[in-house]
């Protein structure tokens, strides 16, 4: 037996690679400006509660200035810029993101709490890839299947969430610019820093002033932006609750709307699945990014005949997950993004307890400061439990069982959401049979949480409408 333990020594990524200013203004018309009413808020590192910077809260006047700048840039510059020239800017941005990837990765992990392994290997490379991909479309819009000469919409108002701050920015800005629109983007109030660093990238790429504007703030700023009368297009990613409010606010106007909302995805494990990889897929499905993923595989459906061995393997695997400092290169699970989100995860978990589900977490030491929640599974969960119905948006997995493929479909679809689903089986025909019947925008087969700019992403039912990514993602930003 082992004579001593293989303890991984701390391996923190260097923090000084990125300069964080003590305060940030709003990025309007190509430069940073102060807010008109002088309000501000703080953004903190959720892993330590340390204040990172003072952020300007944009009021209505600021939002108006940003929309006006975007309109001006659209009328005078961007709508007159050829597709080929727009592509040049997008390629340039893609390249700068790749070149400054370490800076972005460290900043993202600091502000969001996600492990550096994920920001370094997933968020930042995918963000760069999104710009590369849509740069390629900018001069080929006539071949995208929307008519010979599709036109842009104008000014796009984009509101993004805190779970993948830079990546969501890329998902929104890249297709909008490729299609010829200008944008005003509002990052989430808990994670504004990478969007503000992206403003620096726009300057470095010499993107014409006003094509990209970034206004920071909370719900009120977002509301001012989406209800602004000179906005032609609204794109929102976030909770279903806020999505509903936006849909109502936009109703009856000319604004085109796409929503990418919540989810409660089923990850379905059949008895002939490659079990070891399925367990990896379960872990990646729910513990990736602390479960702060709208398409997270938060409902595990296991065929009863393999339930015991899957559970045993899953528990063993969860015992090897490393929770802690997001900047440590060996961390698998970082900090919960905010005190508010932590409270919600705790509340729903307590509801799980009181509804009679059995809670299990591997032994793990959580840091003293900051917001933390251990990787958790609930067994003995039924469809009637709230933890099987409501989006927890945290590292909490509800485990259910099924007997037949038909029952798996029935349970998987029995949710108001429909963003994603996973199927694990060695049988190709069953994968296709399932994919035909699952009412979810994305169905992953023998994998989970894989993204690619060429692949469209979006929801059924209350998970929203419209698609992002791929050729389909252009439609949201074209007058078709």
């Amino acid at each position: 037996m082992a004579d001593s333990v293989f303890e991984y020594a701390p391996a923190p990524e260097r923090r000084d690679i990125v300069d964080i200013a003590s305060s940030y203004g709003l990025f309007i018309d190509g430069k940073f400006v102060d807010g008109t009413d002088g309000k501000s808020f703080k953004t903190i590192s959720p892993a330590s509660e340390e204040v990172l910077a003072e952020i300007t809260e944009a009021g209505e006047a600021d939002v108006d200035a940003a929309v006006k700048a975007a309109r001006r840039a659209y009328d005078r510059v961007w709508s007159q810029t050829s597709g080929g020239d727009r592509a040049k800017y997008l390629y340039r941005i893609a390249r700068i993101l790749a070149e400054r990837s370490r800076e972005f990765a460290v900043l993202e992990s600091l502000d969001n709490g996600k492990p550096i392994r994920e920001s370094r290997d997933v968020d930042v490379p995918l963000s760069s890839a999104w710009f590369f991909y849509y740069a390629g479309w900018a001069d080929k819009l006539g071949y995208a299947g929307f008519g010979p000469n599709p036109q842009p919409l104008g000014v796009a108002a984009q509101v993004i969430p805190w779970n993948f701050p830079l990546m969501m920015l890329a998902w929104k800005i890249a297709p909008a610019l490729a299609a010829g629109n200008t944008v005003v983007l509002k990052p989430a109030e808990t994670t504004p820093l990478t969007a503000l660093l992206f403003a620096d990238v726009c300057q470095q790429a010499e993107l014409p002033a006003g094509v990209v504007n970034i206004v920071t703030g909370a719900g009120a700023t977002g509301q001012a932006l989406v209800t602004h009368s000179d906005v032609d297009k609204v794109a929102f990613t976030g909770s279903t609750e806020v999505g509903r409010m936006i849909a109502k606010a936009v109703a009856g106007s000319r604004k085109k709307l796409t929503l990418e909302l919540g989810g409660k995805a089923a990850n379905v494990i059949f008895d002939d699945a490659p079990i070891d990889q399925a367990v990896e897929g379960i872990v990646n499905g729910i513990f990736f990014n602390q479960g702060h993923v709208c398409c997270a595989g938060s409902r595990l459906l296991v065929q009863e005949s393999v339930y015991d061995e899957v559970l045993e393997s899953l528990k063993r695997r969860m015992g090897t997950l490393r929770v802690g400092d997001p900047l440590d290169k060996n961390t698998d699970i970082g900090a919960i993004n905010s005190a508010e989100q932590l409270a919600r995860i705790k509340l729903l978990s307590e509801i799980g307890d009181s509804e009679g589900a059995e809670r299990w977490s591997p032994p793990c030491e959580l840091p003293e400061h900051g917001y933390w929640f251990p990787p958790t599974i609930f067994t003995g969960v039924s469809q009637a439990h709230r933890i099987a119905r409501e989006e927890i948006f945290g590292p909490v997995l509800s485990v259910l069982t099924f007997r037949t493929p038909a029952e798996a479909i029935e349970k998987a679809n029995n949710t108001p959401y429909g963003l994603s689903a996973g199927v694990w089986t060695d049988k190709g025909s069953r994968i296709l049979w399932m994919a035909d019947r699952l009412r979810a925008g994305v169905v992953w087969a023998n994998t989970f949480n894989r993204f690619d700019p060429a692949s469209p992403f979006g929801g059924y039912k209350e998970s929203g409408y419209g698609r992002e990514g791929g050729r389909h993602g252009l439609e949201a930003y074209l007058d078709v």
Partner: protein
Amino acid sequence: MTTTAPNLDDVTASATSLRRFLAGLPGVDQVGAEARAATLATRSIKTTAKQYALDLAIRMVDLTTLEGQDTPGKVRALSAKAMRPDPADPTCPAVAAVCVYPDLVAVAKDQVGSSGVKVASVATGFPSGRTSLDVKVADTADAVAAGADEVDMVIDRGAFLAGQYGQVYDEIVAVKAATKDAHLKVILETGELATYDNVRRASWLAMLAGADFIKTSTGKVQPAATMPVTLVMLEAVREFRNQTGRMIGVKPAGGIRTAKDAIRYLVMVNEVAGPDWLDPDWFRFGASSLLNDLLSQRTKMTTGRYSGPDYFTLD
């Protein structure tokens, strides 16, 4: 992980039941297995952890020479190095074993004496294994008679790929009987088995037949050891212990040349099979050039700088 046949004696009762059992093992998803291995390779092992890993890796090396040009002189030099890898540093541990062809076992045994370094011998018509069972058994008996502590046998890949699992099983059982008290390492030659499903089946087959260790490769076929192949084998030994209580060792061999690679393997052992396998009794590296890189990194850890290659012996 296996679902089938709680009683493994029934499994090996006939060629048919063995075949049915191996076919019923859960499949391996290639993309998933490779992605898992790649993620484990991103672990960053620094300072004290690196020191620990380097020393452990040195203690796990089966220092190998398997060439037609091997001579008693070469084997003596290699054995000396095995006992004292870094002449300049007495705190440097010895390696686990020297690994040679059967005819040179006596030379190696004479050199390592009672130092604790084992002598391993390849046998059974290594590397192709294309001889009769009688010759394989005689080859093994020869190596053991000459003093080998460990025997590294090859399986009959032709029989395995033809689906003759019973024949492969019987051969391993026969060779195991011939090894007497020596430890038996069974080389699957995963580069010739080609698929991860085959690697998992061959692993179970060897473990059921009495292997003490399962080993990836002869080193004579490309690809030799890879991270994903070793991952699948580590999963197999973990599940085998869950079901039978018996622990089997794993030995990747061939292609592991740098300390960085070796540390990645140790991380994988730690997180896939578990810390119990982090011991030379349960995990080995079949390698020759790896040792000098481990020594060079080890010296760098203690002195803070790299020495030139001339500071490490070339034996």
